[in-house]
């Protein structure tokens, strides 16, 4: 009989696993360090506070916040339906909702364009109501919501499944109507999962590029978000691009720490 390694949980790792693992870590760390090394520190503040930079940053924060709110308003009910209802076609619905996770953003942008663009399915009726979506700030929010929604749905659905239905059964047996059970029991129970989903959705919205460019274009102050600004500056002013990139890196790092700092609040399993 082999003796189990002492003090370790489970069996010991074979040593060779550490080599590719280290390479994987370096793959992420080296480029990040490279960005930091490349930053023009003396001019950093000036670069990130230029008119176009501030406009882009402000637009990014506004649109990412709006799309995160939209994700919560739409995604929580979607997650509830996916985790708790027994509608027919639930598997297909889940697959469709999660599609933007694996779709190239530019494809998502095209799809949105053909939905709400001038020539799109909903374009003419919206136009008749005096609403234009494509190439407006609303289109930015739409694109960000499209790509971020699955992050929120996955997080909340996973939290709902982990929480189980036993608390809800008890609450109902105590006389709580379904809405009361939802608001007073279910949602408080999945709050950590919801928080994780919000953080991920916000981060994904903040970094959105492809879908935004396709359906909203790149108009300064209107649709040119921070990632678009960075891409544009890369041609003309690489120092500004790098400085702004660092801003996004810092925001992303804060977000990641925010998610993993919470216990058990990672994105749930499907």
């Amino acid at each position: 009989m082999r003796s189990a390694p002492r003090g370790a949980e489970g069996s010991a790792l074979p040593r060779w696993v550490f080599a590719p693992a280290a390479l994987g870590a370096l793959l992420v760390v080296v480029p990040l360090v490279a960005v930091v090394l490349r930053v023009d520190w003396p001019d950093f503040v000036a670069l990130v506070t230029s008119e176009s930079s501030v406009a882009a940053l402000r637009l990014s924060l506004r649109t990412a916040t709006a799309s995160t709110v939209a994700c919560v308003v739409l995604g929580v009910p979607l997650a509830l339906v996916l985790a708790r209802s027994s509608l027919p076609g639930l598997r297909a619905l889940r697959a469709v909702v999660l599609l933007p996770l694996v779709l190239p953003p530019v494809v998502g942008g095209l799809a949105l364009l053909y939905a709400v663009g001038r020539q799109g399915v909903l374009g003419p009726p919206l136009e008749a109501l005096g609403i234009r979506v494509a190439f407006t700030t609303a289109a930015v929010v739409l694109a960000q919501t499209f790509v971020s929604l699955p992050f929120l749905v996955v997080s909340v659905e996973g939290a709902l499944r982990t929480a189980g239905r036993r608390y809800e059964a008890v609450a109902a047996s105590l006389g709580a109507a379904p809405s009361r059970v939802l608001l007073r029991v279910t949602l408080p129970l999945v709050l950590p999962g919801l928080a994780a989903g919000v953080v991920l959705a916000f981060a994904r919205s903040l970094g959105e590029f492809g879908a935004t460019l396709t359906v909203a274009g790149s108009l300064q102050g209107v649709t040119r978000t921070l990632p678009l600004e960075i891409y544009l500056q890369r041609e003309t002013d690489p120092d500004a691009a790098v400085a702004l990139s660092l801003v996004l890196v810092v925001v992303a790092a804060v977000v990641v720490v925010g998610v993993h700092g919470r216990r058990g609040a990672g994105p749930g399993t499907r």
Partner: protein
Amino acid sequence: MTGPGGLDAQLRFAPRGLVADVHLAPGEVLAVLGPNGSGKSTLLSLLAGLLRPTGGRIVLDGEVLAGEDGRFVAPHRRGTALLAQDALLFPHLSVEANVAFGSRSAGASRRAARDVARHWLDVTGTTDLAHRRPHEVSGGQAQRVAVARALAADPRLLLLDEPLAALDVGAAPEVRRVLRQVLRGTPRRSAVLVTHDLLDALALADRVVVLDGGRVAEEGAVADVLSRPRSAFGARIAGLVLLAGTATADGLRTGGGTLLAGLRDDDCPPGSAAVATFSPAAVAVHRDDPGGSPRNRWAAAVDELAPRGDLVRLRARLRPGGEEVLADVTASSVADLDLVPGSPVHLVVKATAVAVHAVGRPAPRAGGGAGGTR
């Protein structure tokens, strides 16, 4: 006195093969025993409205909760509070807010709900915990709070799903006492108690239903079913020796006149209906009268010997009372004592190995208080 809680249910759930009829007089407590997979949980889920029955009907106090015409009353309109194995206190609410949850759901004002909650916290001896969070109380305390929460919802019928099974041995008696007090005190409360524990059924229930494979295998008064099991499961769950009779000052007198010395529960005064239980492993078997001072020393005749793992289970009949007693002995003692069916033997059981429990209504507790927290 007829309170609420009269139940008349034909429970049918085809996917799990449940076909069981259950009746409950107002104020009655019915224990549901049975092996795993026998349909106990399904039965409770149907009563609670968590499952939609595939047939039959459920009538509580004359109101059809589920019926053939497709009528189905939602769980929150049934008045059937659930108490599960785990307390399932809402983790984001204080203990007091948990207990007030039912009243608030029924539309009571904050103040009225708090008063109701405080009453039940007092009854269950958990007043000191009112402002704690559920994660700050022990398992036994949490379950007592869960009892308070269920009762504060003023249910017509309490549904208890193995309420003591998840508690450690130290915490279970206190919760059992609280349950006994609220179920069997005044006013009496109707309840269906799913359990696999003989003690729970004895302490809390008037009648017992034994489920096996989704059917009612036997039904009757608790002591009757357990002392004269007619189903395989009834016999197995009565793995203890159980003798019914009347409590005496230091134990119990059986209907056949045999006296047992044992540890009598506080709520089982002399003269009340009671049962004595002990493990077959606690019975020593002698060929000759061992003499000495053991207080439980009976003459008996061996009826049957059956191997049971490393041991031999001996079934003997006391003389002259005729009560049946089981004893587990080693195979070598069977050989040493030369035991065969019909052999006369002497059985000895330590008084400390015999438990005497009340059956039926509890006597009022002295002082009438709910007891303090631990």
